């Protein structure tokens, strides 16, 4: 029954958007983390989406979650134990606005995938009624 294919593909879509949402949550939660365990601030992460062949069709998966290499921002905070001699602390370079926009995009894509599952279900039901 080939409806299983569209259900599986849409489920893969749901899965990658959920992972993307998790990564956005990590980025937002760590937006002020000065020390990510290695003495350096938290580095923004981003999932890499990749098309995978699924029979005749095209599924999707997260191939890896990459660090986004951009220079850290600096904040003047002389009381901070991590501050350098001039009184500046390195903080992660994460734009909350960009993260929120990404979040909206992930939500929309997730809804679209859920809609595909609903329609495929309706089609499968219709064919069972023949």
């Amino acid at each position, binding site marked *: 029954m*080939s*409806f299983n*294919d*569209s*259900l599986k*593909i*849409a489920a*893969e*879509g749901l899965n*990658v*958007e959920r992972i*993307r949402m998790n990564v956005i949550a990590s980025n937002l939660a760590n937006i002020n983390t000065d020390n990510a365990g290695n003495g350096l601030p938290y580095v923004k992460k981003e999932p890499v*989406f*990749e*098309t995978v062949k*699924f*029979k*005749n*069709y*095209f*599924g*999707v998966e997260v191939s890896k979650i990459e660090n986004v290499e951009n220079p850290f921002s600096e904040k003047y905070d002389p009381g901070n134990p991590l501050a350098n001699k001039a009184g500046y602390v390195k903080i992660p370079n994460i734009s909350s606005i960009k993260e929120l926009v990404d979040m909206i*995009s*992930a939500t*929309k*894509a997730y809804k*679209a*995938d859920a*809609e*595909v599952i609903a*329609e*495929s279900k*309706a*089609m499968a039901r*219709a*064919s069972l*009624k*023949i």
Partner: protein
Amino acid sequence: MFSKIYDILGESLNVLSDRQNIIASNVANANTPGYKAKELNFEEVMKNLVPSPSSIPMKTTSRKDLSYKNIYDATEHNGSGFIKSFIKNQKDESVPALDGNTVEIGREMSNMTSNAIRFQAVAGLLSKKFATLTYAITQANP
């Protein structure tokens, strides 16, 4: 008794469900960089499955006209290679996003809805066809 129209309707259900799979692929890859949106042209596939309108047995007036030769062999097309040859990249009508992805989610959603409605129409038609047969069978011997 089972005319070709059953095969044609059944095959069109198959093609519509393949099309649903393609739309699912596009929606799943809506955020994959470099992914090109695919399409499966229903009319084109059906034209290849049903060679000409005259091969649809609608105008048979006598028993002699009923050809028992299959207009197509339904099993022949079930191989994955057949449908695959009709899966194409969508023609670029809009400017693609910076990451090279060409999926337009609005277009996919409207395609999906029309695809599902078409599927339900064909499924309903097929079930009505069977209902007619059932009627004929049961009413002949009440």
